């Protein structure tokens, strides 16, 4: 179980300061938790706070009863936090096999790599020795990123917009991937997404806007409001929506 207690994050520049996250308190214990909300609402920042990439200005992060607020990225990863980037990173020289091996934390054979890669619709034979460089498309990188999280199999997996850049065929498979992943690791999967189809499988939906939790609850509680209303927007935008 992941608990966020009064998390705030402020960015200070000489000219002004901006609060990106405002006193967020949440518990994540469900199978699938979807985080949604408008662009710039603080979703990715929150994911980075959980992974340890961003240190919150105030607040505590508790993983299974243990305070992990002061742990760095590596220590949190070792405690069982995985994070799939919205924009996967390219590496000159490192191959798909290298990354999957590092993710699995042990040497793996082709058949094991095949298990992970086939889940995301890639043939291990074609990909295992390819460099994770500019020769791979954005969609391919995205799938490899997800395969790494599957290979890790940790108790908390955070995905930042996993569907972005993935074609429609893969999209329906993506949902199966999450379902299978949950069966295997029996942990929590947190997905930042705008896609209704992903929100549809969520046990809990959290709406983040303006750095605050606007709504949090079961799918049935949150989804109808989300689809009906556009929230508070200015009159010009409201006219166009």
């Amino acid at each position, binding site marked *: 179980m992941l608990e966020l207690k009064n998390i705030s994050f402020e960015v200070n520049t000489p000219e002004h300061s901006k609060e990106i996250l405002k006193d967020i308190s949440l518990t994540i214990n469900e199978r699938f938790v979807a985080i949604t909300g408008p662009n710039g609402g603080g979703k990715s920042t929150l994911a980075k706070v959980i*992974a340890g*990439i961003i240190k919150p200005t105030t607040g505590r992060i508790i993983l299974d009863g243990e305070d992990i607020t002061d742990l*760095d*990225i*590596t220590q949190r*990863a*070792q405690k069982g*936090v*995985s*994070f799939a*980037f919205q924009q*996967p*990173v390219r*590496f*000159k*020289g*490192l*191959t798909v096999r*290298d*990354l999957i091996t*590092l*993710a699995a*934390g042990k040497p793996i054979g082709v058949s094991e790599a095949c298990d992970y890669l086939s889940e995301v619709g890639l043939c291990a034979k074609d990909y295992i020795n390819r460099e994770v460089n500019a020769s791979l498309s954005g969609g391919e990188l995205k799938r490899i990123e997800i395969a*790494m999280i599957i290979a*890790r199999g940790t108790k908390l997996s955070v995905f930042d917009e996993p569907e972005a850049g993935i074609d429609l065929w893969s999209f329906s498979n993506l949902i199966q991937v999450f379902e299978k992943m949950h069966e295997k690791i029996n942990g929590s999967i947190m997905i930042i997404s705008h896609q209704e189809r992903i929100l549809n499988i969520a046990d809990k939906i959290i709406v983040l806007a303006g750095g605050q939790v606007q709504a949090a609850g079961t799918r049935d509680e949150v989804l109808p409001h989300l689809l009906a209303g556009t929230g508070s927007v200015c009159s010009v935008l409201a006219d166009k929506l």
Partner: protein
Amino acid sequence: MDTIERTLLEQVAELHEVPEGAYNIRANGQSAARNTTANIDIVNKKDLPGIDIIIKPGTKNESVHIPVLISQTGLKEVVYNDFFIGEDCDVTIVAGCGIHNCGDQTSQHDGVHRFFVGRNARVKYVERHYADGDGNGQRVMNPESVVELDEGSYMEMETTQIKGVDSTARKTSAKLADKATLIVREKIMTHGQQFAKTDFTVDLNGEGSSANVISRSVAKDQSRQEFFSRINGNNACSGHTECDAIIMDQAHVTAVPEITANSIDASLIHEAAIGKIAGEQLIKLMTLGLTEQEAEEQIVNGFLK
């Protein structure tokens, strides 16, 4: 061979024992072992220190190893080796120099290699540089390669220098005839106060000749690297040169690619990039459970692989 020489041999030639096929092992300025085959002859030069390696036309799938080992502090030598590779050959040449310097005097090996590659021959040339030893003595290597590629021939040069060598200036020049191809892959990692300079000059003289010079390097600590690559297109030809360097700590890297077209049908490209390890690369590997240092090692090793 003692343990030190064995280690050096393993590092520069990936050999655990004396190799199969033709070889010449030079240890501390002396010829330590030699083997010739029916197709590959090795003879001492008469006027200069060094050897001539003569490979008969049509020799296929044979290899020559010519490692140089230095474990004596203060030894300085210049060695001239000439390779005569006959027409239609397909051979692998493994050269390399290992210096173990525990003393406080400079040990230096300067090898001048000339390659005369016959028509339609294929050569793979592998060169590794390695040095260790905890003395204050400098470990210096200045290799020079001169390559002449005859019509339709093909040469692939792979040079590697990972740590250990205090100072190196590598000079390579090549002249290519019609339809000849040269591919150079260089890998360098420097650390501490080391200095490495490489200087390539390729003359694409023949019609349909092509060259690809690729350098990947990592400069750590206060080390310095300089990369010069000159490709002259003198005919209908294609040339590409690329330098990609990772800079770390307080290192300095200079990359100067230079392409000159002397023919309207020459097609030449140069690329050079220097940059530090991207923060997001480190972060990604750290989210997989690696420490920052482990992540850095993985990125550097992958880059130089």
